[in-house]
């Protein structure tokens, strides 16, 4: 029974997960303007994509947003994880534990809506942020990306031998010094992995960005989505293929870094 069942199940699983992606990649090299009719191999749509100012502009915005939100998310997430793993019990610990991971399970629509309301009321009462654009998207993406970074950093901090930090204290380093000399370098691979994950999550996000962005700050997913609503054009396939390539590379690097860090710890 196991002889044929296992390979079949694996094959079915892979087809289920990756057939749509493979077909998308294949059709991105389609000569024909009709998305579902094969008209021969061509890189025509990639060329067309490069001439599309709207798409290039939004891609640039998306990259900027992803870069800054990944940076901020790593800082916020690491600090949160450090407090939760190293400061023992303190008042509000349970609340912080729950809140730091809440964005992971919160429906994006709610996150987006609540952030929009926050930004609007802040603008009315504080005058900042003035209007909505890249800044508000970065803040919004930081909140949910920080949750992912916090989870990764927490698991790394937990598995790290705490006597490393104690040894540094013992040798005469103050607590801040220990954090920068020992803790940070040891968990660095996990933080890089967290950064890459945050970057791709931010790059992917459509829902939250739609809520909190303003005129002139459409991210790439927003532009694609609006294009698709007018009918699927082949250059979107080309764009999606490029994004898949990006994400794939980032995820592979992140996974490799995590694996290497764990190995070094054990070895």
């Amino acid at each position, binding site marked *: 029974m196991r002889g044929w069942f296992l390979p079949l199940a694996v094959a079915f699983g892979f087809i289920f997960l990756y057939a749509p992606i493979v077909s998308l990649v294949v059709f991105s090299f389609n000569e024909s303007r009709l998305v579902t009719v094969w008209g021969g191999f061509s890189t025509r749509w990639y060329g067309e994509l490069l001439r599309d100012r709207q798409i290039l502009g939004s891609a640039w915005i998306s990259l900027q947003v992803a870069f800054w939100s990944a940076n901020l998310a790593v800082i916020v997430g690491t600090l949160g994880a450090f407090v939760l793993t190293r400061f023992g019990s303190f008042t509000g610990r349970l609340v912080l534990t729950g809140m730091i991971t809440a964005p992971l399970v919160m429906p994006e629509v709610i996150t987006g809506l609540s952030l929009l309301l926050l930004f609007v009321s802040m603008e009315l009462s504080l005058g900042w942020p003035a209007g909505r654009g890249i800044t508000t998207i970065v803040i919004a993406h930081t909140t949910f990306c920080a949750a992912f970074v916090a989870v990764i950093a927490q698991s790394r901090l937990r598995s790290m*031998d705490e*006597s*490393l930090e*104690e*040894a*540094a*204290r*013992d*040798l*005469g*380093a*103050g607590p801040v*010094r220990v954090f920068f*000399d*020992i803790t940070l*370098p*040891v968990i660095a691979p996990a933080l890089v992995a967290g950064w890459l994950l945050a970057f791709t999550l931010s790059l992917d996000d459509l829902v939250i960005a739609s809520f909190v962005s303003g005129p002139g700050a459409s991210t790439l997913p927003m532009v694609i989505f609006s294009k698709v609503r007018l009918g699927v054009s082949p250059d979107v396939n080309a764009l999606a293929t490029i994004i898949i390539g990006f994400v794939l590379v980032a995820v592979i690097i992140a996974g490799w870094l995590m694996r290497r860090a764990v190995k*070094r*710890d054990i*070895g």
Partner: protein
Amino acid sequence: MDGRVIAAESKPWQNPSAQPFISLRGVTKRFGNFTAVSEVDLDIYRSELFCLLGESGCGKSTLLRMLAGFELPTTGSIRIDGEDMARVPPDRRPTNMMFQSYALFPHMTVEKNVAYGLLREGLKKSPAYERAREMLRMVKLEKLARRKPDQLSGGQRQRVALARSLVKRPKLLLLDEPLGALDKKLREETQFELIKIQETLGVTFIVVTHDQDEAMTLATRIGVMKDGVIEQIGEPREIYETPRSRFVADFIGTVNLFGGKVDVAAPDMMRLDIHELGPVLVPPQTGLTHGQTIWGAVRPERFSLSRARPENTQNAWKGVVEEMGYIGHMSQYRIRLANGVLIRVSQSNRLRDEDPISWDEKVWVSANPAAFRVLTR
């Protein structure tokens, strides 16, 4: 089991006017409802190699961590070299610690690891690395200075950890199971190396271990811990020969424990009534009264075996060899007495051509009165 023998004049603990280097008074540590260390009073003198010995969870590591400053005592005081340590954080204590996991910084080379403490002290780079190399020469690792910890063997890591903890010339070195991760042969070699280093540098060592052989070999004195309390403090020989409780007698080495009562407690004669053995003559000692519940403890090597009934002793019992193990330099026996009691006896094999007592032989087990250590708890 050969304890360290120290010249009498270098035993400050026998001199009531000697100043202790480390002194703990009423030190208690609680974690929630759990009391890890309870009311410990302890004096340790300069240049001692003191071993805290006990099973895992007895509080010995917690005690060590309180000395290093990683834990603060719930109550009680710790003084090192006359200075109260209550408000001194670990980075400002005159102590260094060698961790059980060695805790080598994985992202630094061996020499960086060793120099780290010196750099934190404010030393410039080149003298710091110079001293780090000197230390590595002492532990015979100067060739591996540029390696990372994950490129070293267990024994090499242990020596890096030792070098790192000694490089700042601490007044007190704390070692948490320093040899625990090494294999047996390496452990024995390293034991003597540790003693040599300790004697050369004159640093006070406190070693935590669960290995009684290690404690006996290394220590000037041993503190045997159980459930957060120090049961007995003494030189290795004292701990082995005159244990104060059944726990200590049983924990250090092998022992035959018998329960009973004091039968006769006269100044010139003392007789016990042991449940398992009947009347037993022991040397007279003070502090015991007729009818008191006691335990008699006898080390296996203090019993003698013979085929004929030994003369001029009343402490002799008849039995059968139930099991025998030949170890080489000695043989271990289990003798079943007529009343069913098992006695462990070991005999050293001093003659090559002797006709050894073997399985199922009928033998006499005997012990002279001084073989019995009388315990009241």
